[in-house]
């Protein structure tokens, strides 16, 4: 046989590995800070870029795209050439990918704390960074696909299937969810509004979990578990079935983030049933990972790498069972908007993603540096500290979640809410927040041990920049291959097939939301926001208010009694972007401006809002909201107001032609009214202050429905 020699270049794997470690520490530290801010709300000291609403997106983006992202690139750049017996196609593209990705992360770390955000969860990055992401993703894709085309192994292995699915799906998701029109260099409005925007966002958001935190990590699992344990994969057939089922079904599940919202019943139902059907395909991955270790359990007992893989895959199995359960409407009615969700996602990230990544690096670092791990004992300590940290993080939050939810729903025998004061339900779960911060601290300490161990390992060895390998120059021809085996030999067709499979669900859910009028019922009294309210809304977005306050009253007696009439899809038709929120650390604000004289919700005076925003603890000593003194000091930036109005008109908000010209005057007039009112209550404030715009927006919330009455 004619054997060809070639070399693998380990440089990019090494660079991605170091980036993973660095951003892992950063991402977890920011998360830990946010966890402490919830128990020490004045910790941010009124400093804008330190407040919870600014740090939370930084934490999620750093954890997902910087830590796990670099981790999967490490795995891809290491495993792909070895699985295909060819070097990566281009070092230049690899370098552009690496440095481009790190620059994007740095840009995110600078912009998010400054409040430059699109507000859509895990899609917060502003449009110029979005463009950079697309460019880098295309560069990565070319490099990956060309490497596959250059292969010396005819069939592509299951890891590669997952890498391909990741690449095509993330490309589709990212572009569709980020379609927007810029108003300026740093700001834009999405082309979608309200419930349609929400559907697109959660189609994206759920599949960021599926195709960024799951499929590439499964690819990682399929390479590193057999490799480290030196055991064959349990079942090739299972790989095929669970791969295609997983990518086909996952894409449909997004609407389960919008259960009991104003999303139409049919879309909610699709979200429910596709989530339930995901249990088996997800568990297919877990089974194939765990059963591959049969015969190697004695190694698992000793090797911290395999131990971490086992915990990771188990956590994967747990969260992919819990996820579908949370998608049942009856469970979701209880879990949604509570810390239950936070607990759930951290089983996924701290357990599945991080443990896979730690395990991989404990194995890979000694390989790349021709040495042994500095301390197996320390790695074992890390394993236990991290596992305990994860439990201390999640279990209290599960308790917090259902405790608070039950309190929200409890009625007295007189038919009144038992805990009408939202704050009571927060105070009740504070001990759980303390425990969570403790768990997070433990987990972080474990990560520091990991960093120390890896630094020592790297220092004790010398970098193996290239590795020689050889393989036959041409494929053997196989006859009588099954249809799937044939497909594995045709990566372009494979990629197209994956693309078609993932497009089906998205198209069937999203297209009718636009074409069928009855999905969003028009409400004639719903009008566009005034210019001042537009600016106030953008401040609400900048400060990340939506991260702790929902604007979606679900059709439950307990919510209608607490917040007022439940939210209708027709009410958010001018909401670019939608701001339904996904968590209620504070109360829902969908009817904040309403005084209908019927339900519990009452319109708070402007002065209350002013005092509360500047110093929430003055109004309620137990409040855990950050202070926003700077909103009363900073002057409102109206420099792009005209552009905002014309951009909103372009995306469908019916401002009259030429309204830009009088928008500023309208803004000033409305601001003066609120300013006058505040001054009459003895509050000294400029009409130009940002806080005036935010108050205008808050007082507008939910009121349109009552205009005719």
């Amino acid at each position, binding site marked *: 046989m004619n054997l060809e020699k070639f070399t693998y270049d380990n440089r990019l794997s090494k660079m991605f590995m170091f980036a993973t470690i660095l951003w892992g520490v950063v991402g977890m530290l920011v998360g830990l800070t946010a966890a402490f801010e919830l128990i020490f709300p004045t910790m941010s000291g009124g400093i804008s870029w330190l407040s919870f609403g600014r740090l939370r997106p930084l934490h999620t983006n750093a954890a997902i795209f910087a830590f796990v992202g670099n981790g999967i690139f490490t795995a891809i750049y290491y495993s792909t050439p070895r699985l295909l017996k060819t070097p990566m196609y281009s070092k230049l593209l690899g370098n552009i990918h690496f440095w481009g990705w790190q620059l994007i992360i740095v840009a995110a770390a600078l912009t998010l704390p400054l409040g430059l955000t699109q507000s859509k969860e895990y899609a917060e990055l502003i449009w110029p960074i979005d463009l950079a992401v697309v460019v880098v993703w295309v560069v990565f894709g070319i490099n990956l696909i060309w490497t596959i085309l250059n292969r010396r192994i005819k069939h592509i292995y299951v890891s590669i299937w997952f890498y391909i699915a990741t690449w095509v799906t993330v490309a589709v998701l990212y572009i569709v969810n980020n379609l927007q029109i810029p108003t300026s260099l740093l700001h834009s409005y999405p082309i979608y509004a309200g419930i349609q925007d929400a559907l697109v966002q959660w189609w994206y958001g759920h599949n960021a979990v599926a195709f960024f935190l799951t499929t590439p990590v499964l690819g990682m699992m399929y390479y590193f578990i057999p490799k480290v344990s030196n055991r064959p994969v*349990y*079942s090739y057939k299972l790989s095929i079935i669970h791969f295609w089922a997983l990518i086909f079904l996952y894409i449909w599940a997004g609407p389960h983030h919008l259960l009991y919202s104003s999303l139409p*019943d049919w879309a909610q139902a699709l979200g429910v049933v596709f989530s339930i059907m995901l*249990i088996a395909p997800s568990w297919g991955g877990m089974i194939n990972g765990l059963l591959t270790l049969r015969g190697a359990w004695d190694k698992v007992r000793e090797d911290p790498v395999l131990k971490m893989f086992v915990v990771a895959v188990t956590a994967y199995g747990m969260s992919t069972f819990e996820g579908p359960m949370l998608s049942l409407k009856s469970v979701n009615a209880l879990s949604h908007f509570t810390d239950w969700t936070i607990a759930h996602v951290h089983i996924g990230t701290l357990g599945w993603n991080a443990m896979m990544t730690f395990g991989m690096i404990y194995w890979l670092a000694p390989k790349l540096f021709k040495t042994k791990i500095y301390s197996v004992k320390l790695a074992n300590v890390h394993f236990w500290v991290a596992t305990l940290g994860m439990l201390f993080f999640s279990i209290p939050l599960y308790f917090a979640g259902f405790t608070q939810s039950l309190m929200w729903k409890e009625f007295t025998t*007189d038919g009144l809410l038992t805990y009408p004061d939202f704050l009571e339900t927060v105070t009740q779960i504070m001990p759980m927040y303390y425990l969570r911060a403790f768990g997070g601290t433990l987990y972080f300490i474990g990560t520091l041990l990991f960093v120390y161990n890896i630094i020592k390992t790297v220092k004790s060895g010398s970098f193996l920049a290239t590795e020689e390998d050889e393989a036959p120059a041409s494929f*053997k021809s196989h006859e009588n291959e099954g249809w799937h085996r044939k497909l594995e030999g045709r990566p372009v067709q494979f990629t197209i097939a994956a693309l078609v499979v993932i497009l089906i669900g998205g198209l069937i859910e999203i297209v009718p939301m636009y074409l069928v009028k009855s999905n969003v019922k028009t409400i004639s009294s719903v009008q566009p926001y005034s210019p001042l309210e537009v600016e106030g809304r953008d401040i609400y977005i900048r400060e990340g208010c939506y991260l702790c306050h929902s604007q979606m009253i679900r059709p439950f007696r307990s919510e*209608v009694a607490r917040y007022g009439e439940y939210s209708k899809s027709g009410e958010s038709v001018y909401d670019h972007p939608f701001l339904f929120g996904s968590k209620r650390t504070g109360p829902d604000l969908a009817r904040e401006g309403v005084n209908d004289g019927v339900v519990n919700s*009452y319109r708070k005076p402007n002065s209350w809002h002013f005092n509360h925003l500047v110093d929430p603890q003055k109004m309620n000593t137990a409040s855990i909201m950050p202070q926003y003194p700077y909103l009363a000091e900073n002057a409102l930036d109206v420099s792009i107001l005209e552009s905002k109005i014309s951009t909103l008109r372009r995306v469908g908000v019916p401002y009259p032609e030429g309204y830009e010209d009088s928008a500023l005057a309208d803004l000033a007039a409305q601001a003066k009214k609120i300013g006058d009112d505040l001054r009459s209550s003895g509050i000294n404030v400029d009409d130009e202050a940002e806080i005036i715009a935010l108050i205008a927006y808050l007082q507008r919330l939910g009121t349109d429905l009552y205009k005719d009455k």
Partner: protein
Amino acid sequence: MATDNIKNQNEDYELDTLTNERLIKDHDYDGIRELDNDLPPWWKWLFYISIAFAIVYLVRLFVFNADDLVQKAEYKAEMEGFEKSQPEKVAEANFEVVLLTDDASLANGMATWTKICAACHLVDGGGLVGPNMADNFWIHGNKVEDLYNIATQGVLEKGMLPYKDQLSNKERLEVVSYILVKLHGTTPATPKAPQGTEY
């Protein structure tokens, strides 16, 4: 397991030494081999059942419009169920607002006062954000019906919240009775300056 799957005795195959299961020929990726195991039956059943669940669920919604899957119907049922279970609520209109003086009612009133009202009026009624409740000056009248109405409807422009949805009519009557019987006429530690008309 796949080991009973040997049909062609002439076909060359390898067995995994630890599990004695059949390895798939020519599946070797950087040293990673794959076993020819079938899907675990329980896994298949799990998948089938979840698909059956999905079909039943969708048929119930799209064909039968099941009340528990149509959001509006579900909400209506919940609210109607509540109305039926609340016959005493209908009696609100006939509720008699008369000053209560029995110890039990005043004790209940005091509990409500301490828990809710004291935040703005102080425990001893001296007043803070809200007015002094111990002196002879009243902004909205001094009769039990006057106070009851304020507790019920609130005075929103001044920050007094309506409590009709937080406290039952009995609780509201108890607390205003507590004000008139127990707090009124006492000497608070830090009394707020009089507001309103002297009665």
